Each structure stands twice: as structure tokens, then as C-alpha cells.
């Protein structure tokens, strides 16, 4: 004898479909809109950058006279210590910074959401075990650990993504867990259970859709953190030396004495780039939180 579980699940997703209206809500939010515009610009830069590069970002200068030159009509943002075009580097750097940020966030979110849902749904010893692990990662000072891991495993993009991803999930796990804890007490979950639905099915059909909103909002905030983490690692010289990121531009500007020489065109663009992208993600993330949690509305 079989029950039509679909019908029950249908009841579970009873909340009105808000997906489409979310973007509209975001657009209506002044800060969210600002963030969204900034994000669109950086995404455009990262995607179109390589097509519209004025120069190959790896093209070095011809002689010592082309080193650290101030902005000119040819070199819009001047040149760096190898005589490379800073504007092209800036565009290339956007790509790596965003890529690392997004990939690390993906890892972080998958772990964080997984741990959170499993922990909150099963409770008991599973919860105890997973949450002690989460607490451990939450209190471990992430930056020194990233530096240590980066130094041990070497400097390539994949390692950096993994290191950042594996060290930035605990917050997501905590938030998702508390939401799951509340969801699993709902009646429809109990009903699904009494009808014989498996744990996996309940998580997939009854829990996951409801924490998704929360995960998305949180993920956007995590991206900001991951981009900053990449910039930090690259700045202290643990980035992938083969690739230009905003963090590594700052690193090379710092070690080549650009700051002392007042070569603002070299260190200002990547610095502002990081600032604006992180700001954009933060604005959008908080806007999502406000949409999600009406109690926060009116605060912006």
C-alpha cells in the first residue's frame, strides 16, 4: 500500500512563492540596489575584462623607464614595477578575486548547510558531535590557520580555495541548524514522518526549501568574507604567484616600494576594488536578511 507523499510535500511548501518578488524587494531596498549595481559592474568587469583588456596583463615593459609610470592616455592606471598595465591587471584581478571568493563560498556553503541541516534534524549525539566540531572551527583563529595551511600546502589557486572554504563554514552551520531545529517541530514534518517518509526525503522536501532562503542570504555575506580572506592571504605573499588577484597586486605594490614612491595608481585600484566588491556583497546580503526577516525591515 502506498501513500501519495507528493500531496503531503505539496502542503509543506505552502508558503507563497516569493522567489520572483525577492529580486523586486531587493531592488526596492536602497542599499540592496546599490549593492546589486556594484555587483553587476564587478561581474561585468570579470567576465568582459579579458575581451576588452587594453593590454595583455602579463606584458612587461620595454625598459626601466616603463616601470611604475603614473597614469597616462596609454596606460589609464599607470604601470607596475614590471612595467605592466595596471588597468589590465585590475580587470584580470577582479576575475581571480571573484572566482576564489565564489568557489570558496560554494564549499563553505555546502559544508555549512549540510552540517547545519543534519545536526538540527537528527539532534542527539549527531548534533552534539557536529556542533562540537563547528564550535571548534568557530573559535579557531581562522587567519593564522589559513596562513599555516597555505604555507604547508603551497600556493596554488585550488589549495587557496579549499583552505578558505574549509575554514569559513561554521557560521552558516549554526544559523541553518537553529532554523532546522524550529522547522522539524512543525506539524507537517511530524505528519510526513507518520506517513513513513524517510529522513532524507523529509530533509529534501520539507526542510531544505525552507532554509534555502536563509542560506542564500548568509552565503552572500560569506562571499564577502572569502574575498577578503583571499586578499589577505595574497597580500602576505601566500597567494598563487602565477595569477593576478587584487590581493596579490597589493602584495607586489607593498614589496616593490610603490607605497613609499607614492605610486597610488598601483595600490589604490585593487584596494578600492576589494572594498567595493566586499561592500556590494555585504549590502545585498543584509538586504536579503531584511527581506527574510520582517523584523529587521525599516532599519534601512
Amino acid at each position: 500500500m502506498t501513500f501519495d507523499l507528493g500531496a503531503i510535500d505539496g502542503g509543506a511548501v505552502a508558503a507563497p512563492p516569493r522567489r520572483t518578488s525577492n529580486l523586486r524587494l531587493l531592488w526596492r531596498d536602497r542599499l540592496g540596489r546599490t549593492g546589486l549595481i556594484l555587483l553587476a559592474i564587478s561581474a561585468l568587469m570579470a567576465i568582459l575584462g579579458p575581451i576588452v583588456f587594453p593590454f595583455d596583463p602579463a606584458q612587461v615593459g620595454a625598459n626601466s623607464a616603463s616601470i611604475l609610470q603614473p597614469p597616462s592616455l596609454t596606460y589609464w592606471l599607470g604601470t607596475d614595477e614590471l612595467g605592466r598595465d595596471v588597468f589590465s591587471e585590475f580587470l584580470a584581478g577582479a576575475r581571480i578575486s571573484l572566482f576564489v571568493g565564489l568557489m570558496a563560498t560554494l564549499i563553505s556553503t555546502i559544508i555549512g548547510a549540510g552540517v547545519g541541516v543534519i545536526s538540527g534534524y537528527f539532534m542527539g549525539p549527531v548534533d552534539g558531535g557536529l556542533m562540537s566540531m563547528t564550535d571548534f572551527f568557530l573559535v579557531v583563529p581562522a587567519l593564522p590557520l589559513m596562513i599555516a595551511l597555505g604555507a604547508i600546502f603551497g600556493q596554488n589557486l585550488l589549495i587557496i580555495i579549499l583552505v578558505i572554504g574549509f575554514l569559513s563554514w561554521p557560521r552558516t552551520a549554526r544559523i541553518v541548524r537553529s532554523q532546522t531545529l524550529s522547522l522539524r517541530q512543525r506539524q507537517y514534518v511530524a505528519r510526513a514522518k507518520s506517513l513513513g517518509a524517510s529522513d532524507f526525503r523529509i530533509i529534501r522536501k520539507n526542510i531544505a526549501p525552507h532554509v534555502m532562503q536563509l542560506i542564500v542570504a548568509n552565503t552572500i555575506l560569506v562571499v564577502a568574507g572569502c574575498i577578503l580572506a583571499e586578499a589577505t592571504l595574497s597580500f602576505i605573499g601566500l597567494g598563487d604567484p602565477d595569477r593576478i588577484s587584487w590581493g596579490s597586486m597589493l602584495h607586489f605594490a607593498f614589496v616593490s616600494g610603490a607605497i613609499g614612491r607614492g605610486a597610488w595608481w598601483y595600490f589604490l585600484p585593487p584596494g578600492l576594488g576589494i572594498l567595493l566588491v566586499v561592500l556590494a556583497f555585504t549590502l545585498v546580503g543584509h538586504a536579503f536578511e531584511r527581506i527574510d526577516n520582517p523584523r529587521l525591515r525599516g532599519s534601512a
Partner: protein
Amino acid sequence: MVSMQTSSGPSDAQHGLVSRRSVLRAALLSSAFIAAPALLAACAPPTTTVATNKIFRVGWKSDIDTLNPLTTVTTEAVEVQSLIYDTLMAYGLDLKPEPSLAASTVAAGATITYTLRDGVTWHDGTAFTSDDVVYTFDLIAKNSLGVNAQYFSDYVSAAAPDAKTVVVTFKRPQAFDPGLVVPIMPKHIWSSQSVDQIQKAANDKPIGTGPFTFKERKQGQSVSVTRNEKWWGDKPAAAGASWTVYTNDDLMAQALKNGEIDIIPQVPPTVFTGLQGETTLTSESLDSFSFHHIGINLSQVPGSKGNPLLLDKGVRQALGYALDRKQIAEIAYAGFASPGGSILTPSLGDFYYEPTGDAVIDNNPEKANALLDAAGYTAKDGDGIRQTKDGKPLAFRIIAISTTSTDVRTAQLFQATAAKVGIKLDFATVDSDTMASTVYNVEAPDWDIFVWGWDSGVNDPCYLLGVPLTSQIGGNNDVFYSNPAYDALYDQQATELDHAKRVAIVMQMQQMFYEDCGYLVAVYIKKLQSYGNAGWANLTAVPGGIIFNFTRDNYLKATPAGS
């Protein structure tokens, strides 16, 4: 940090890491003695300096490792110790040996006789005697202690017939007089300690006979010394000297502009151009006896993890043709270097070999491609990287010290030009300790290519030529080059007293080593030093550096500016 003097490499397998340059000081001495195993009489020039209360303040990027001359590995430490301790002979501003603790030195056959100066006392007031010299030589020779142990391989004994005379006996006549490099240590302080204790001694209150007495050390921050009012020589004007560690070049440059320090002995090129414009500073770009090179792992020991494709001379030469030395000098060094080639620097005069015509292995991508094509390395699968017939890619790892920005830039530039001929270089940066331990791992070297440098500082070819000797594997030989023909020529030139004949042999050696492409000498660097005009005057700009050179005399002869 621009230069490699602070980077360490092992002097011999037993004794671990040693300052690359301190080793080379000895070579200078050695060359001087080959040329003139002479009697050097004491001849102190009339003094003009007046003792003042002013401190000679130096800013640099690395801390000293220890104050114990028997275990020290960094050039910074050797610099500080050279003012606290005296040697029997020392280098003047003309970079020639002068009497120091020994008023005269006579080399005859296999013995060297030192006649010591009168009226020398240790910093603690004890009288200095020939026993101290005998003790120091015995200690180093019999226990193989420290950097200088390598000059005592033929050592038999030292004797003190009286308090003013030391007779040192070797197995064979010595081209090199260790008296020029060995800091003489006080017997009354050290003799009560076991060798084990001596090797572990921090020596944090060093007692020497030198022109300055130790004052204070703040680990990781600074060291300072005070003028020794009872020194036997002409009293320096400086009331003391201090060396402060800066973690950042810009901060250090700012400190110089603000007058917080008087001199920076190693200014990175990009910072240097900024300092050149300052009217309150004097910035010297000095010829040096230094080159920076790309080293290729030639080790054939079973444990070597170097890429075996590099054992193919054709591949190495292709790398040589891919390297654009002019570009590196112009871009990585902002023009403060000249394109490299031979293992000897142009500053060595007629010993220097300059390849011409077809012999030139530099910036010639066509030739690199032709070589690789002929050897059957072709790019097949569309990624542009050449492969061997059985599909192994011509991809190598390249490492450089992260804080040596010029080396990092050299690697970046090389990476780009190598890619153009289908060779992939995977670049990684390491810290200086990792660099030394990775490169000098004789049993299992796990690297392919590095960027690093040597500072000869000697006006003689023997030191740099000696680096790639087979006998230096486990010592200075950082690429494990081994060529019996080269080794034989080295021994020949070391005993050849006819200059023209020696030049001919030295040329042959350089040509041989150049063609083998174990080293791709990238650039001959300039030593960039800046000092404040309001600080010290009467500083003589000598090749190799005003300070941080193998002569300490600028510390002793500097006079306060405006006096």
C-alpha cells in the same frame, strides 16, 4: 630585500648553514696571498678622526642570528662581530690586506709567523697574548668549528714561542692565510667550556679586542656597540654603532629620510630611484662582485626529485636562449644591474669572460625552438607545452625567496619568456630558510630551478670559480654541477702564478661552465646604498659597499657631517 648576502648556504655538510659572503671573504684573502705571500709591515696612517658622541646608525632587513663567531651564519652577524672582534690581518678601504692584531706576518714554506701588536687588551681588561691566538686556531681546526674551519684542512699546529709570536704550521704551503678571517677569541673566557657548550653558546656578552664593545641586543629588533676607548688603533669618531631591523623597505627608507638612521646598506632598486631624488641623502650605486643566477638542479643522486629532463644539456641551453637577461636587468632591477653571462663578474677585470657571436646563449627564442625541435621535444596537444616522445611535458618548478623582490620579478619574467618557447615554469615563492634547506639538500634535492645569487666581493676569480667544484657538493655547489675537467682546471689555475697563463685557464673554465648551462647567470647587480648627508661624512664608496663589505674601515673612519 634585494640582495642575497643574508641568505645562507652551507659551507660544508658537517656545519650546516653559513653566510655566503663570509666564506668569500676568505677567498679574497687567499687570492691576495697567492699574488703576494709577503711580509706586511705595520704602517698606520696619521689619524684625523676626533672622538664624538654620535652613533653610527644602520638600518637593515634581517636580524643577526647569533653573536657567537663560531656558529654564526648570517652576514649581518659577521658585520657586527667584525667591530667587536679583531682578526690578525684585515682589509683596508683599498680592499687589500693590512696588519691588524698582527703587526707583521711572514709566510715561509708551510709556516706562517705572526708578530703581535703591543699593548692590546680584551674588553674586560685582560691582556691579549699569543696564547689567545693559539687557542682560537686550535679550537677551530681541531673541532671543525664554524665557517672558517674549511681553511684549516692542512692545519698541523700553532705554537707560541713567546707572548708576542705565533707560529702556525700547515702540511703544505698555504695560498690562503686564515689570519685574515678568523676573529681571535679570548682564551680566558672560552677555555673553561666544552666544545659542545661552545657550539651552543649564545655569547650574548661578547668580549673581543675590537674597536667597539658590545652594548645591547634586542632580539629581532636591534644590536648596538659602544666605542672601545682602550682600543689599540686610531679611535673612531663614532661613539658607537647600532643596527636596527626594519620589516618593510618603505618604513626603512622613511626612517632614513627622517634621520632616524644614517645608512641603508641594501636598498631595493624601486625604492632606490625614489631615494636618489632626495637632496638630503647621498645614494651610491656601486659596482659589486655579485651576480644573481638561475640555478638548475643537476643532481644525479638516487634521491633527487629534480626533473631528469634538466640533465639534458640541450634543454638547459634552450632555457638559456629563452632567458632575456637585458630585460631582467632593465625591468626586474630597474636598470641597476647589467645583463649576466659568465660566473665571474666584469668587476674582476681581465679574468672576466664575455661570450660573443655564436657562443652567446641569451634571448634567442629561434635558437631555443630549433634546439628543442631537433631534440624531438614538440608541442602536441594544443596547450603549447613541449613534450618528450613519451609524453612528459617540459614543465619545471621554479622557486625564489619571497622577500627578495628582484628574484621574484626575475622568475616572473623568465616564466613569460620560457613559455614562448614551449617550456612551462611553475613559480612558487619560499622563505629564505626553506630556500637554503631545499636547495642544499644533497641527498634528496626536491627542486628543479631556482633564482638566487652569489656575492663574491673578492677581487680574484678563485672564490666564484670554486662554487661549482665537485668537492663543493655539500658545500657551496648549489646546483650539484660535477665536471672532472673543470675541477682539474681549477687546481691548475690555483697554483699558476703567471697572470697571463692563469687568465687563459680561467677563461677556459668560464667558457666550459657557461656552455653547460648549470647556471644561467642573469645579472651582475649594483650595490645600492643610501646615507643621510646630515649623519656621517668621510664615507668612502668602495666596490662591494660602503659598509656591509669585507672591510670595516668606513665605520672606523667616518666623521660627523659638518665637522
